[in-house]
């Protein structure tokens, strides 16, 4: 056993090391600083999450691509072969919204229960607790990229060119998605400690949310005309996922107006005909909102965290 490096008087003096403070109230900047300083732990938890999910499976992470690819195949059969809703390449439209939704949904469902599930850890090891919820979001991000890869392959295979210019907005949209998902996940994980029904409630609510987001239908086609008459288009965009999903669809599906593949080939408005600038501005605004939401979530979590030990 190599005991040598530790033996002898330590040369390191503690005089100059910074002082850490443990107290009831922690300022928001300290909270964020603490999370940032433990990013290695966040990474470790994400890796272990993924490892555990695919433990003892031969294909491992590959499954996170196989499963969505298979789903894609089924959708292709349903919408392009049997049901024929008239949208050309509807699979791409559907899948570009679905990967956003999958990331959101799986993060929220796992994060909501995470503090209760990892109570043993929370009660015994010191680290910023929101990292647990963030690690669920992190794992979902990894699966998101696996699905994105599948989408890119399918887009290429179908010979469909994405909107290259709009792709510049994609990172902004994606960061907003991560921030919003984290914000909601962090808050729900804390609420679930006090109100254990949250987990079941959110599952039901997510089903409703799914249909409030234009994933399996077109916003422009099905919803916009009705709202425009009353001048309340903005109501629909109160759902922050709408803009993100529409941006992804604009990038990968590209076509704002298509000719139906079903006779008599009427014109369908699939996506908003907004300019690049409008997309950019809206997404930048959303990023701002997402940042604020994340800070608020951190503050709420800080308040709720204080009495976890009495409830776990």
């Amino acid at each position: 056993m190599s005991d040598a490096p530790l033996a002898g008087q330590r040369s390191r003096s503690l005089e100059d090391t910074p002082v850490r403070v443990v107290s009831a109230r922690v300022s928001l900047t300290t909270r964020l600083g603490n999370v940032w300083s433990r990013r290695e732990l966040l990474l470790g938890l994400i890796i272990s999450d993924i490892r555990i999910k695919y433990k003892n499976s031969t294909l491992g992470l590959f499954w996170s691509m196989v499963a969505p690819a298979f789903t894609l195949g089924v959708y292709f059969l349903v919408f392009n072969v049997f049901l024929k809703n008239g949208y050309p390449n509807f699979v791409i439209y559907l899948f570009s919204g679905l990967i956003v939704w999958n990331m959101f949904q799986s993060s929220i469902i796992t994060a909501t229960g995470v503090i209760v599930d990892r109570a043993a850890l929370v009660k015994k090891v010191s680290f910023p607790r929101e990292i647990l919820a963030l690690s669920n979001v992190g794992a979902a991000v990894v699966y998101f990229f696996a699905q994105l890869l599948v989408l890119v392959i399918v887009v290429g295979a179908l010979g469909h060119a994405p909107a290259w210019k709009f792709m510049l907005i994609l990172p902004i949209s994606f960061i907003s998605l991560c921030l919003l998902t984290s914000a909601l996940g962090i808050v729900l994980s804390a609420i679930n400690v006090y109100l254990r029904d949250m987990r079941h409630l959110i599952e039901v609510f997510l089903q409703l949310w799914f249909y409030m987001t234009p994933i399996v239908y077109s916003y422009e086609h099905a919803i916009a005309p009705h709202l425009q008459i009353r001048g309340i288009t903005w109501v629909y965009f109160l759902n922050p996922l709408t803009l993100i999903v529409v941006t992804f669809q604009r990038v990968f599906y590209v076509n704002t107006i298509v000719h139906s593949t079903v006779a008599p080939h009427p014109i369908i408005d699939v996506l908003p005909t907004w300019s690049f600038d409008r997309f950019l501005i809206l997404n930048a605004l959303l990023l701002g909102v997402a940042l604020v939401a994340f800070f608020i979530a951190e503050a709420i979590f800080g308040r709720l965290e204080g009495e976890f030990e009495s409830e776990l």
Partner: protein
Amino acid sequence: MTTVIEVEGVSKKFKIHHERHQSLKERLLHPRSGTTEVFDALQSINFTVGEGETLGIVGHNGSGKSTLLKCICGVLKPTTGEIRLRGNLAALLELGAGFQTELSGRDNVYLYGAMLGLSRKAVDGIFDDVVAFSEIGQFIDTQVKFYSSGMYVRLAFAVAVNVDPDILVVDEVLSVGDERFQAKCVDRIMRFQQEGRTILLVTHNADQVRALCDRAIVLDRGEMIADGPTRDSLRIFREHLLADAVEHDPSHLLGTVHIESVSTPSGSFEVKSGAGLHLDVSVVSQTAYSGNFVMELFTHNGLLVSRSDAQGAPVNLLPGHNHVAVDLGQIPLLDGVYNLNVGIVDPRGHNVIAWSERAATIQVTYDGREGGIVELGATIRQQ
């Protein structure tokens, strides 16, 4: 000396729910039912620990010592007050709490390291030491769920002590593993001491505190009742335990027996090494009682030299003054000052009926050539 830990006015209140309504339905149906009681686990605790000190925290179960430790580690947040820390801290609290049983030992070492604040690279650096110390060997790549409880704890301990902490917090974990591993752990803690690290040791094992700590604080029902040199604190702790036991004593025996004094016929506690000493222990009892008599002898720096009792023969106390004779036939000790504790326990040895800490101080003089504590009288010759 740099102050490493500063605990200032720390209080901790817990809410105890008597009727837990955690589901929505129950909350809606019983909006006001379920009483919540506030329990003061810690009440304005103040102390500081300097760099390189080893501080013992003693107290019986429920005295708040684990709560205090968890506050210092940051697992719990104090309700009021502040704790200021310098340097990184590794806690040996309920070892292996952070383990993911589905993962291999190797993955868990990295994960646990990250929890203690180490980077992946830093864990790479200590990984071999961890495996060697834990004696896990080839099982390091086995899923932790197949580990025995001993292996589990050994691995966790090995990570925690190899992270090079500035402050090490140890909570009752020295009772894990087999005896050999325990010795190894104590060894490691002593080396940490020599290296000038700061150690907090929480235990209700007074012997361990005596052996490892320079200073101890005593907690009782959330309040700090002593802070000082180990032997003074331990005396207060024992007296307190006794007083506490008197309150909860079903047979009302406690407090009825009192050890008044220890004397010698000559009045002097100085003795030459190898000579004998006759001690006369004066015991006042209010009732007739038959129990076992115990004596302990410690060196002045707290090492237990001997603990002996009346060897099954009970001491029969009568109401009034009693005298118990303790004959130390030949004291084989080398020169030094030795502290004597005497006490009376019930025949099964479960409860202390009366106790006197440092009832007498014995001065031994020795003019031979041997060094240490005890004279073995070895003869050395060439064959």
